[in-house]
């Protein structure tokens, strides 16, 4: 009996609390702002796979261009005696950047959680090309190749590492997408 009275009393008090006037967390203008932002986010989410595919394609193109050019056996441009000295700081920066990228790439998990055939093939191909370039550069150094030739190879290597980083990053984003 006492319990029934208590329960009725609690129910009455709950309903009274339900009648307490509340307020909206934010006004109409803020609601509209959040609504537009949310719609924009949905559009981006919907188009994310296409964006990733475009990034992979762009990376593949960037990779392909230097190799297409190297197939023509062009003569290296004649550099002035000062050119090597002037370019040195930039080259060092570029090499440092490449090393940083390689460090980041080394930190990535070796086993891909989800293997997407396109991206995986691109990564493997880029890694092979970098390894081949490393071999070539070692051989050229042993044979006493000209500095300009070594510079060209170094630049080519930087481009490959850049492309690899872009593809790996795109793949990482794709894996994180639910």
């Amino acid at each position: 009996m006492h319990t029934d009275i208590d329960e009725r009393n609690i129910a009455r008090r709950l309903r009274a609390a339900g009648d307490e006037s509340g307020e909206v967390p934010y006004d109409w203008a803020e609601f509209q702002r959040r609504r537009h932002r949310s719609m924009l986010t949905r559009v981006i989410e919907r188009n994310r796979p296409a964006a990733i595919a475009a990034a992979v394609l762009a990376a593949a193109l960037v990779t392909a261009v230097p190799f297409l050019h190297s197939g023509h056996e062009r003569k290296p441009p004649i550099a002035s005696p000062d050119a090597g000295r002037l370019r040195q700081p930039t080259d060092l920066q570029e090499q440092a950047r490449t090393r940083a990228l390689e460090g980041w790439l080394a930190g990535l998990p070796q086993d891909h959680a989800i293997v997407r055939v396109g991206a995986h093939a691109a990564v493997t191909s880029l890694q092979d090309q970098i390894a081949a370039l490393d071999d070539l550069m070692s051989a050229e150094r042993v044979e006493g190749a000209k500095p300009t030739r070594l510079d060209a190879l170094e630049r080519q290597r930087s481009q490959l590492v850049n492309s690899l980083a872009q593809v790996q990053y795109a793949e990482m984003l794709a894996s994180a997408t639910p």
Partner: protein
Amino acid sequence: MSRLSEIAISEELIARARDGEEAAQAAIYRGVGPAVFALTRRLVGNRAVAEDLFQDTMMVLFQRLGDFRGEAPLGIWLRQIAVTRCLMYLRSPWHRARLQWESGDDDSLHPSMAPVTPATSADALDIERALASLTPVARAVVWLFEVEGYSHEEIARLFGRSVSFSKSQLSRALARLRQGLAPQEDQEACTPI
């Protein structure tokens, strides 16, 4: 009067909002918004989560206004949208994981379940505190049954559980509320006039 089921919105205003008139939509927002937010806060407790669910509910309202046939008041229709969204959140693995982080294995008290609305009276404050001591599911059941007028069958359907689940949750929630409110009542009785 802040319960959704009791808010009256004119058909003419709904028709204008359905046609995309922003002023009409803003008027509906101001009319039903406070009750929608109060309900979502009651059901999920956490303010930030309630804001997200409120935003979601109001967006769905304006997106689906064309489907509203007017067979029931707009508030009832909107309440269903809000309740469904809140219960989806309460059932989500993310929410359950969050509760575990916050309170370990202790299922009795959740720090995030702070008092919901700014209470305007001492009695309302007591109720808020007592409600905050309930688990989210128990609070949702007691609120839907006692305040929103849902039946045990409707609550069971909403949670995808049996009627006895709803009854036992309500019984335990009321027992806990009784316990939580008792000391305050004793204190009031002893207060010298």
